[in-house]
C-alpha cells in the first residue's frame, strides 16, 4: 500500500495571489503637459473679463455721478450769475426813465449817472441817446462809447432794443480793451452803457463758493462758440467733462460753462476703477496661478497613483512569484512519496503560513527502516529563507543517512547536534523522531525540544511525551533519550510543527488541547484528517508554516 503525500496545490491557484498581473502597458499614459494650461488660462481670462466689467461699471458710475454733480454746480453758479443781472438792467432802466421824464435833461442825466460810471461804478461809459436822432449820444458820462463810432450800428441796435422792450445787448465791441454794450429804452430815450471786460477776464464772482475748485467760462450767446466774456483759464475752451447752462441776458443769452478741477464726489470714486483694475488683475493672476498649481498637483497625484498602482500590481506579481518559488523549493526539499509498510499508512501535508513568501525551515519525513518499522520525523529550523531551508535539507538528509547506517534516534540527534550551532549561525532546530515498530508494536519517541506527537486511538487522543532533549544547535554533543510506549491495535499518530498550535496571545497548551479535540474521534481517512486539522486553524491561516505528518496502522 502506497500513500503519496497530499500536498497543498501549488500557490498559482491561491486566491490571494491569483489576481491578473497588470502589465506596464495598461498603465494610464501620462497626459500631455499642455492640458494643465487650459484651466488656469480660462480662470485668468474670466477673471480679467470680470475685472474689466467692474472697471467699466465703476468708471461709468463715476462719470455719470460727476456729470450730475457738475450740472448741480453749474446750476448753482448760474443762479448766482442770474442774480447779478437785474441790477444792471435796473440801473439802465431808471436812467432811461429819468431822461424820458425830464425830457432829456442832460444835467439831470449827468447827475444821476455819475454814480455808476468810473472807478466806483460798473460801467466805463454811460450815455443818453434820443431815439429820433440815434446817430450820436445826447450826453456821455465816462469815456466815449464805442458805439458812437458807428452810427449805423447804433441806429439799428437802438431800434431793435426799443422794439423788444427789454435790455438790449449789443455784444462785445472789439478794440484794445473789449467792452460789452447794452441799452434800455424808455419812451423816446435810451440809456446805453459800456462795461469793460476785466483785464484778466476773471469774474468778480469766482471768489464765491459756487466756483470753488471749478474752471469756468462765460460766453455771450446761447452757445459755447459765442464770444468769450470771462474765464479763469488761460486758454478756453474748458477740458471735458464740462457742463453748461444758458442764462437770459436781456435779448441775448449768456452761456456758463464749467468743469471741475477736482473730483466732485471725492477721490475714492475717481480712483475706484483703477483700484478695481489693479486688484482684479492681481486676483485673476493669483487665481490662475493657484489653479495651475492645483491642476499640477492633481495631475502629479494622478500620476503618482498610476505609478503606485503599477508598483502595487508589480508587488502582487512579485509576491505571487516569490511565493511560487518558495513553495516550489519547499516541495522540492520535501519527500514526494512516503514509504509504506504492511498495515501502515503514512500521509503528510505542508502548508505555507502567512509569511510564506520565503521558503521555511519546517519539514517532515518518513524513512523506511528494516523490518516493519517506519521512522517518522518532523522538524523545524528557526528562521526562514534559504539559510533555514538549506539547514533543514541537510538535517533531513543527515537523518536519512544516519538511519540508513542503523543509528537510532538518540544517536542520530546527538550527531546532528554537531552540525548546527546557534552561536555560529543563530539557528536552532527542534526535531521529533518516532519509530513506529509494527513488529514489536511499540512507538519509540525521541524529542529534541519538539512538541509531542498526538496519539489517536478508539476515538480518544493523547500526547505522547518523551524525554525532552535540547533543540539541535544549543550544545554540540547533547544527549537524548527515547521513550517507548505500547502501540494500540489500531491507531493514528500525528506529528506536527508549532505552526499548527501556536497563536499569538494564547498558551501553547490551549493550542495543543484544541488540536487534540479536533482530531479525536474523527473517522476520516488520514489525508482528509490532516487536511482538516490544517484548514481548521483559527483565523484561517497560521502565521507560521505548518508541517504535519501522520501514520495510521490497522493490524
Amino acid at each position, binding site marked *: 500500500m502506497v500513500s503519496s503525500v497530499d500536498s497543498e496545490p501549488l500557490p498559482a491557484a491561491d486566491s490571494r495571489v491569483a489576481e491578473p498581473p497588470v502589465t506596464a502597458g495598461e498603465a494610464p499614459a501620462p497626459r500631455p503637459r499642455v492640458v494643465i494650461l487650459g484651466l488656469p488660462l480660462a480662470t485668468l481670462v474670466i477673471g480679467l473679463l470680470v475685472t474689466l466689467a467692474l472697471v467699466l461699471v465703476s468708471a461709468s458710475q463715476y462719470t455719470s455721478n460727476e456729470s450730475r454733480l457738475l450740472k448741480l454746480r453749474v446750476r448753482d453758479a448760474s443762479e448766482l450769475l442770474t442774480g447779478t443781472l437785474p441790477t444792471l438792467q435796473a440801473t439802465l432802466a431808471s436812467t432811461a426813465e429819468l431822461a424820458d421824464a425830464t425830457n432829456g435833461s442832460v444835467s439831470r442825466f449827468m447827475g444821476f449817472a455819475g454814480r455808476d460810471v468810473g472807478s466806483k461804478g460798473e460801467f466805463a461809459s454811460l450815455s443818453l441817446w434820443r431815439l429820433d436822432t440815434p446817430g450820436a449820444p445826447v450826453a456821455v458820462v465816462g469815456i466815449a462809447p464805442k458805439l458812437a463810432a458807428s452810427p449805423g450800428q447804433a441806429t439799428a441796435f437802438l431800434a431793435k432794443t426799443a422794439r423788444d422792450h427789454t435790455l438790449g445787448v449789443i455784444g462785445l465791441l472789439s478794440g484794445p480793451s473789449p467792452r460789452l454794450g447794452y441799452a434800455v429804452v424808455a419812451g423816446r430815450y435810451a440809456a446805453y452803457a459800456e462795461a469793460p471786460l476785466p483785464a484778466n477776464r476773471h469774474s468778480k464772482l469766482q471768489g464765491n463758493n459756487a466756483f470753488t475748485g471749478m474752471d469756468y467760462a462765460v460766453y455771450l450767446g446761447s452757445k459755447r462758440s459765442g464770444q468769450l466774456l470771462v474765464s479763469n483759464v488761460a486758454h478756453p475752451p474748458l477740458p471735458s467733462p464740462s457742463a453748461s447752462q444758458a442764462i437770459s441776458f436781456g435779448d441775448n443769452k449768456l452761456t456758463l460753462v464749467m468743469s471741475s478741477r477736482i473730483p466732485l464726489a471725492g477721490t475714492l470714486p475717481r480712483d475706484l476703477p483703477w483700484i478695481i483694475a489693479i486688484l482684479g488683475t492681481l486676483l485673476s493672476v493669483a487665481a490662475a496661478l493657484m489653479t495651475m498649481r492645483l491642476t499640477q498637483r492633481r495631475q502629479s497625484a494622478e500620476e503618482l497613483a498610476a505609478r503606485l498602482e503599477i508598483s502595487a500590481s508589480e508587488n502582487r506579481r512579485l509576491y505571487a512569484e516569490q511565493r511560487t518559488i518558495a513553495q516550489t523549493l519547499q516541495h522540492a526539499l520535501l519527500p514526494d512519496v512516503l514509504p509504506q509498510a504492511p498495515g501502515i499508512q503514512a500521509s503528510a501535508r505542508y502548508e505555507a503560513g502567512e*509569511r510564506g513568501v520565503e521558503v521555511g525551515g519546517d519539514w517532515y519525513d518518513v524513512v523506511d527502516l528494516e523490518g516493519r518499522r517506519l521512522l517518522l520525523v518532523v522538524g523545524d529550523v528557526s528562521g526562514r529563507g534559504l539559510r533555514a531551508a538549506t539547514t533543514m535539507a541537510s538535517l533531513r538528509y543527515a537523518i536519512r543517512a544516519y538511519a540508513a547506517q542503523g543509528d537510532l534516534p538518540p544517536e542520530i540527534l546527538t550527531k546532528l547536534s554537531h552540525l548546527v550551532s546557534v*552561536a555560529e549561525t*543563530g539557528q536552532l532546530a527542534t526535531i521529533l523522531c518516532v519509530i513506529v515498530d509494527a513488529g514489536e508494536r511499540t512507538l519509540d519517541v525521541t524529542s529534541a525540544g519538539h*512538541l509531542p506527537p498526538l496519539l489517536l486511538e478508539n476515538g480518544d487522543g493523547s500526547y505522547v511525551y518523551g524525554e525532552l532533549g535540547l*533543540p539541535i*544547535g*544549543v550544545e554540540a554533543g547533547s544527549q537524548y533519550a527515547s521513550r517507548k510506549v505500547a502501540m494500540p491495535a489500531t491507531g493514528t499518530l500525528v506529528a506536527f510543527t508549532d505552526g499548527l498550535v501556536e497563536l*499569538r496571545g494564547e498558551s*501553547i497548551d490551549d493550542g495543543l488541547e484544541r488540536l487534540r479535540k479536533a482530531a479525536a474521534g474523527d473517522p476520516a481517512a488520514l489525508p482528509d484528517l490532516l487536511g482538516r486539522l490544517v484548514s481548521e486553524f483559527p483565523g484561517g491561516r497560521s502565521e*507560521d508554516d505548518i508541517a504535519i505528518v501522520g501514520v495510521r496502522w490497522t493490524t
Partner: protein
Amino acid sequence: VDDLEGLDESLVSFDIETEPDGSAMVRIGGELDLGSIERLESEVDRLLASAPSRLVVDVGDVRFADSSAIALWVRWATAVPRFELRDSPPLLRRVITAMGLSTKLGVAS
C-alpha cells in the same frame, strides 16, 4: 551607562543598559518574531562585542515570541558567561519549557 531605545515597526521596544561592573541588562517588550527582531539583534550584537560578564534579559513585557526570538536568546546565553532571562510571562515560559530550554535559559519550568 549606555542607554538605547528602539521601536520596531511591529512594536518591539527594547532598552539596553550596561553597568560599570561589566554586566548588562536588556529590557524587551512587544511581539517578537522573525520580522521584528532585526534591530534588537543587531543592537545586542554590538553589546555582546564588548563581552559583558553577565547578561540579564528582562522579557516581562513580551507578549509573544516565536522560535526565532527564542533562538536569539539561546545564542545570547551561549555568548556570555552568565545569562538570565528574567520575568518571563507564563505563556512564554511554557514555550521555552516545551522546547526543553528552561535550564539553558534559566527559566523555572
